[in-house]
């Protein structure tokens, strides 16, 4: 070894398939402009359901980029994953057929919180409406949570460590951390992230049991965390995949290091116990900062979980204050997901993508639809705020009780 290895985990590529953009550029434009794309649910079969507003991915035709043989055997959530992985790999200029990279040097890690619901509902309908012999050959590989990791690995020829965290929302950050750890253990790069498609009619019925789900019918009023009008969260589909790569491997091939995944921690405080999540989230933040060797005052922006449930919003505001001290009320906090909805595991991955882009562009995106903040937070509303964020903290909590915090550092951070 001629020089010491740098196994820090870097983000070198971003691929987005989101309700507000089917490419990183369109996503970032809509995000920093504070555009809200929340709208009435239009998916067939959802007309009579009490969920009225969601973040749908529109204007995405999977057939544009995904080969027919992969399309027929996969659900929508995997279509998004394959497309987002392609975008991320292109962005990172990685995984091209003409390189001599070992197939074992790249792995795939996804988080999944809802599975292949539309495919599964179709096959259930065949089974119960017609009979078991009408169930197709792909049900066994399309519905399950591992479908996206498996298909991305196969389609792109990646044999490195592959994994799937099937989780509540916070799992999105856990997947990125899992990827970062695999990189530190020796794998060159992991394609990691999450995409979800929870808007098939039966999937929506399943979510109606979440008391945190917003049933508001007016898109502009449906998801307004940190306000006194908060009435729950709006679900969404789509997501993002990132290339998480060892710094030395990235440098060797001349790739740009966009940010470092510097610290992460996860805790658990019980399903829907939002008051308790204060301590759990604060603990996760402290541990993540410690791993990143980052002082609270160095955090330049917080991407909040922003559930939109008053007790949960209060707990999050207090957790930020608990963990960051006086800096917690001064640091800019944002929740761009109010413009796209909350795509379960995919939500914090999109936030991570937005955080990397915010550091690159020197622009903190706002929190659409939110105006009168009723907590002691400097929430960025209205317009994007110009700044020079070098360290970003991304937070996520899940409906089953997980809390997760991720620290990202710009390469120019000290």
């Amino acid at each position: 070894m001629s020089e010491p290895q740098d196994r820090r985990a870097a983000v070198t590529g971003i691929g987005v398939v989101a309700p507000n953009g089917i490419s990183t550029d369109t996503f970032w434009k809509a995000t920093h402009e504070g555009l809200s794309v929340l709208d009435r649910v239009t998916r067939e079969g959802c007309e009579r359901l009490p969920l009225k507003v969601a973040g749908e991915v529109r204007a995405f035709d999977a057939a544009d980029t995904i080969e027919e043989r992969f399309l027929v055997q996969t659900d929508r959530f995997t279509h998004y994953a394959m497309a987002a992985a392609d975008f991320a790999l292109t962005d990172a200029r990685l995984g091209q057929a003409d390189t001599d990279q070992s197939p074992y040097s790249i792995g795939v890690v996804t988080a999944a919180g809802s599975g292949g619901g539309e495919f599964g509902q179709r096959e259930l309908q065949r089974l119960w409406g017609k009979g078991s012999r009408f169930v197709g050959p792909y049900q066994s590989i399309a519905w399950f949570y591992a479908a996206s990791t498996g298909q991305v690995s196969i389609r792109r020829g990646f044999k490195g460590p592959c994994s799937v965290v099937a989780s509540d929302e916070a799992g999105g950050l856990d997947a990125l951390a899992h990827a970062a750890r695999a990189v530190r253990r020796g794998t060159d790069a992991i394609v990691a992230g999450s995409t979800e498609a929870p808007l098939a009619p039966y999937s929506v019925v399943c979510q109606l049991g979440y008391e945190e789900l917003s049933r508001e019918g007016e898109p502009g009023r449906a998801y307004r965390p940190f306000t006194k009008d908060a009435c729950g969260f709006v679900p969404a589909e789509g997501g993002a995949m990132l290339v998480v790569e060892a710094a030395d491997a990235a440098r060797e091939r001349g790739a740009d290091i966009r940010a470092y995944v510097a610290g992460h921690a996860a805790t658990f405080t019980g399903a829907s116990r939002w008051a308790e999540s204060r301590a759990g989230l604060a603990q996760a933040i402290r541990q993540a900062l410690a791993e990143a060797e980052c002082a609270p005052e160095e955090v330049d922006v917080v991407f909040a979980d922003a559930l939109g449930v008053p007790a949960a919003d209060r707990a999050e505001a207090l957790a930020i204050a608990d963990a960051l001290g006086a800096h917690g009320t001064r640091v800019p906090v944002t929740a761009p997901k109010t413009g796209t909805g909350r795509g379960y595991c995919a939500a914090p991955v999109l936030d991570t993508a937005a955080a990397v882009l915010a550091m690159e562009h020197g622009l903190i995106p706002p929190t659409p639809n939110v105006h009168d903040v009723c907590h002691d937070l400097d929430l960025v509303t209205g317009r994007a705020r110009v700044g020079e964020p070098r360290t970003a903290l991304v937070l996520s909590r899940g409906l089953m009780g997980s809390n997760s915090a991720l620290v990202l550092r710009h390469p120019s951070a000290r």
Partner: protein
Amino acid sequence: MTRRVAVTGIGIVAPGGIGTPAFWDLLAHGRTATRGITFFDPSQLRSRIAAECDFDPAAHGLDAEQAERADRYIQFALVAGDEAVRDSGLDLAREDPWRIAVSVGTAVGGTTRLENDYVLVSHGGERWDVDHERARPQLHRAFSPSTAASAVAERFGAQGPVQTVSTGCTSGLDAVGYAFHTVQEGRADICIAGASDSPISPITMACFDAIKATSPNNDDPAHASKPFDNNRDGFVMGEGGAVLVLEELEHARARGAHVYCEFGGYATFGNAYHMTGLTKEGLEMARAISTALDQARLDPTAIDYVNAHGSGTRQNDRHETAAVKRALGQHAYDTPMSSIKSMVGHSLGAIGAIELVACVLALAEQAVPPTANYETPDPECDLDYVPRTARERKLTSVLSVGSGFGGFQSAVILTRPRE
């Protein structure tokens, strides 16, 4: 210095054996727990057999409310968790809750309840625009894949990282492997780790029917799961759950705990080949084995027993045999390799953890469980598959391998404590 990870407790709910004594008794005697499906009318199906658990939640410490709230696969995880924690001797109330982690594997999670409620809301599969008013409470808990891990964490007061790993049929190995990393790398001192699945339902049986992966030997269910036998004709569905308490070795020693074994190594790779197909060469599984050996700092010749994936499909058994030969070399021929799926069926995401508990027990009992129903050799599978009868053997290091839809290939090595 690298932290070492010990196994200090085990618990299990398996077909034919709830609790580790009953489970080991089944394995040691080579009995099979496969039978005709009783949970629903399987007459439409090609494969109408399974290894079902005779499981009464009330008899295992779950009250009516807990049983109603938790799907069957979660009940398995809770009951196996109770046994494992009891076995470990840990008083979890005295531990720092932030340092207790949970890692649970499941392949299909709440599918059984999802299917049952689907039938209600769709009026028996008539309607795409389902009728939400017919859905029952708790349905959202079946929809969320992390409900089992959440329930386990709540039961044991864990507040550290709580994770669900879902990599199809390697979920069990991967969840426990994830737990290994969690403790080894210092994110927790204790991890309650395992896996659970209850996939014996019409949709899951039908989807494996559709690809002829399961055995149609409906006339002789007790002998239908025949891994490595030339007359095998697919796997037999199973169900169950298993939990291992992983603990940082010094933490275990400090409290004078019984250490079953140490976690030597874990690796997983994708075959990047096919969602359900396997290559003849088994390169990726061989690499997982070799990587796990490197982590454990063991020579291939140190492996005393291989707990096979051994699902009983032709391609699996040949793939796996090739992989083990590639990784262990000539030593593979001297190493017993058996599949307990011959006795307890293939419980998808759960089986990897069930097989790890079998490995822990094999190390404790110094005996190798057999491959039941093995009669007729397959010329392409020429290793020692421990036919029908358990075998006493000095065991220090054992290997468990798994292979799953999605192309996942995983390997775990457990070793007896070094002095």
